[in-house]
């Protein structure tokens, strides 16, 4: 018999640590991508402003990542202690995707530490390469980890057999990354987090800049940027739909012989190229708009097109992949879908996602961006957290959803003995205490003793 306290505290500990973890790692992921863009732009334009912003953001990234990383370890150990069978099934079936995520963690953290400590101490190109490794590693982590969430939503690649009255879950040899729920979830995680971080960065750079006059009134580049963006999205949609068609076709004929129809692939390639072309046009138009804003060029905000463009692209893509993720859940995970639908969360998510896109677009306007960046940061954070929390909570009382039913949490809870309740309670108290200490340290680091260049990473001899 499974001790009931293990179910309760198992869910509580995982919920609390998961909340803390994703709250922090969302910013880690976004910053890991945006920071190298700032640095590269700085070197390409020969402008120290971008490099200075990249450096300050890295200082924040390092501190947040340390705390977020600890929470990841907490989550893993709590999962192992309270839900051993679930972890076993996940790691057995998802050996390679989870290993990919682990490799991502390792690459990201080491690159991040090197990136920070070797600032100004190594060649420009080498430092940028380290930054790109940091971004790649950070992107690999949610990519691999989303396979676990996908498996819980739709156990693709799992063989369920019964022997001696016991049910066994093992791999059926299918690639878990082909789980139809997986890719939209992983990509939504990427773009939602990049969007929310873009808003935070935009707010940060806006608050640092002293704006004396308003922007120039030249809207032609903005209009052409919007048109290009729409066209880019249209071709992206075409490319994705063509690829999916090819995938479905090839799967359908796999048993009768190889598919010979390459037309969807060719049209997907053409659509992708066109999508990238229009994306490039959109980006160059937006940049032009800022450069045209001569009145504010010297004071900073004119250079803030990086977070604006990043917010627009990622919020639009997060809307797209949210839509795809929800439609896949409707198709493959009906229990989860109906739970989301009945609680109206579904509509809130879509509304929030649209609102975030809108806020990102109006952030093009310099005056408005001062307010829209903060609002965008709050709403996009809320969108990301709401999706993560609601999609996980909606599985209850099941841990793994199988169609309209599932396998209950109680089935997976540690049955060996009742883990002393004092352990999680002490854990929560320590989280609270250390969070306060951590926030106080951040306050000291950014407001009392801010990083302003210097050879922080080198020893004095």
């Amino acid at each position, binding site marked *: 018999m499974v001790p009931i306290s293990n179910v309760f505290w198992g869910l509580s500990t995982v919920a609390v640590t998961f909340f803390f973890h994703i709250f922090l790692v969302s910013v880690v992921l976004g910053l890991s991508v945006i920071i190298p863009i700032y640095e590269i732009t700085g070197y390409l334009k020969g402008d120290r402003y971008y490099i200075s912003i990249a450096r300050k953001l890295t200082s924040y990234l390092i501190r947040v990542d340390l705390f977020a990383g*600890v929470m990841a370890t907490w989550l893993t150990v709590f999962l192992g202690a309270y839900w051993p069978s679930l972890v076993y099934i996940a790691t057995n079936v998802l050996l390679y995707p989870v290993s990919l995520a682990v490799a991502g963690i390792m690459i990201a953290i080491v690159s991040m530490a090197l990136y920070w400590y070797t600032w100004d101490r190594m060649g420009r190109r080498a430092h940028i390469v380290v930054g790109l490794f940091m971004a790649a590693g950070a992107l690999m982590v949610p990519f691999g980890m989303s396979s676990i969430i996908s498996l819980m939503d739709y156990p693709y690649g799992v063989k369920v057999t019964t022997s001696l009255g016991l049910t066994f879950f093992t791999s059926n040899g299918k690639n878990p990354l082909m789980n139809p729920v997986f890719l939209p979830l992983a990509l939504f995680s990427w773009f939602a987090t990049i969007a929310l971080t873009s808003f935070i960065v935009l707010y940060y750079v806006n608050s640092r800049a002293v704006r004396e006059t308003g922007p120039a009134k030249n809207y032609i580049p903005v209009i052409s940027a919007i048109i290009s963006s729409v066209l880019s999205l249209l071709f992206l949609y075409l490319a994705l739909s063509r690829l999916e068609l090819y995938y479905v076709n090839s799967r359908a004929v796999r048993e009768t012989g190889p598919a010979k129809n390459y037309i969807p692939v060719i049209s997907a390639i053409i659509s992708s190229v066109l999508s990238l072309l229009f994306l490039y046009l959109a980006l160059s138009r937006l940049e032009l708009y800022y450069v045209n804003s001569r009145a504010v060029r010297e004071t900073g905000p004119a250079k803030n097109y990086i977070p604006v463009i990043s917010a627009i692209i990622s919020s639009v893509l997060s809307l797209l992949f949210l839509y795809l993720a929800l439609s896949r859940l409707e198709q493959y995970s009906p229990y989860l879908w109906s739970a989301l639908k009945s609680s109206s969360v579904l509509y809130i998510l879509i509304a929030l996602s649209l609102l975030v896109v809108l806020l990102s677009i109006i952030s093009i306007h310099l005056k408005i961006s001062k307010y829209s960046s903060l609002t965008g940061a709050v709403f996009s954070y809320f969108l990301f957290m709401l999706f993560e929390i609601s999609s996980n909570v909606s599985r209850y009382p099941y841990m793994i959803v199988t169609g309209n039913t599932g396998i209950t949490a109680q089935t997976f809870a540690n049955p060996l003995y009742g883990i002393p309740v004092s352990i999680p309670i002490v854990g929560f108290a320590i989280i609270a205490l250390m969070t306060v200490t951590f926030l106080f340290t951040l306050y000291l680091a950014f407001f009392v003793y801010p990083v302003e260049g210097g050879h922080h990473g080198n020893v004095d001899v």
Partner: protein
Amino acid sequence: MLQRLTIQAFQLIYLAVSGSWSSANTAELMTIVGIYVHAFFLIFAFAFPIVVLTLEAIGIRRGDEDYIRMAWNGSKLWGITFAAGAVTGTLVEFGLIVVWSGSLALIASMAAAPLMLELYAFIIEIVLIGTYLTTFWRFKRRKWGHLLIGLGVLFGSNLSAYMILAVNAWMQVPWGTGNTVSHLFLPWVPSLGPLVVNPVKLKLLATTLPIVGSSLLSSPGAFQLLSNFTTDPWIAIFNPEVYATYLHNLFAALIITSFLASSYFSYKIIKRVGDERYSWKGLRVTFLVATVASFLQAFAGDFQGRELYLYQRNIFDATEGIPAKGGYDPIMSILLYGNLNHFFPGTNYLSSLLPQGDVLGQLTIASTNTYAPVLHLLYYTMVISGVILIILGIGYFGLYSTIIRKIVQSLLRIREETFVLYGSFAGAFLSILAGITGWATRELGRHPWTVYGVVTYNDVVNSRIITPLFTGAIILLEIGIFLAGLWGIYMIFFKNLKRGGGSH
């Protein structure tokens, strides 16, 4: 013996190349590399705070900013080594869960409490490292207050290490299982503490895993057959083996890190980089810390050896080189029994204790006999290195004692200062060698068991095939992280020196 070692090495290479290795063999290879890479970085989090805080305390006490600056420079190492340590720690942790997935049964049972407490220690350590670094130089009046934050880091890192070592110690000596291990497979094992583990469930686990492997966990229902496993989830923390292991590892880490620090100062003095007086101050303190730790390590090593003799007799025989038919070992005899003539029965005697059909017991003896020459070599490499470290430590006092100075000068024909300068490098090398061989002895000696006398390696490895390609990729990544970490250390501590440095 050399011939036998060579043959074994060729056998291993042949097995690896011919693809005859099992998943457990392949997985073990990546685990070995991962643990050593992790260990290299974690020792800086584990013991280096002692060096840093000693320097800071001296600086505050004497009002000498040089020492405080050394502490500041030393604490910068935490950033890079902590990052690399955390990364490789994550790797080891995931390796435990992903590659050795059957060990989830251990995590869910006896290791749950120590591992969860380790989490708390880990967060204390990491948050306080951030606070320590951020507030360095900021305490103008209450400098001891800053030291207090550093002590918090030390507390967190040591509590974390203790808890992890408690899990490892339980894998060596499964404390709380009473006579179950001796009744199950290994009759020479004495009673392992009070019986707080349900013997029926432990036996079920121990006998089921060899048949179904780690896939036992793939059925939540099957796992429920092990309910009511223990009545005392805290027992692993109070295992007598962990007391010895913790002290032994703490002093080992302290010796390595303080000798590395003294090597750094020696390097600067020899290369004439920076202020020589400043470097000598640092060298004296770090070498002294290494010396004190080396002396204390002798007692901790003795404590550890006694635990080995008491609880893992077959491994003791192998490490001490006791022949299978038994023999005499005067040093061990006098240490353990107070006389020179105690006869130590070898593994043949242990084998004679095995009941009919005890396949795992026979496998244990066979494994011990196979690895005996390697274990003996590794063990004595550690012991002899430790003895030389103590001699180096005594020689260090020549800086303060005329008698010792004269002995050093007459024996080695070098100046005392030269002895200390080059002794630092020797100390660093020997302490790392002792650390590597010591840990190898511990882990290799436990073959074929994951938990000594309860669960074997083959029982807990992931039921999916661990391919050589996968192993190779992970090992490459581990080596990459190791090199990246070293590169980071070089960039922070050495590149500046090459540029000519400058005065502090």
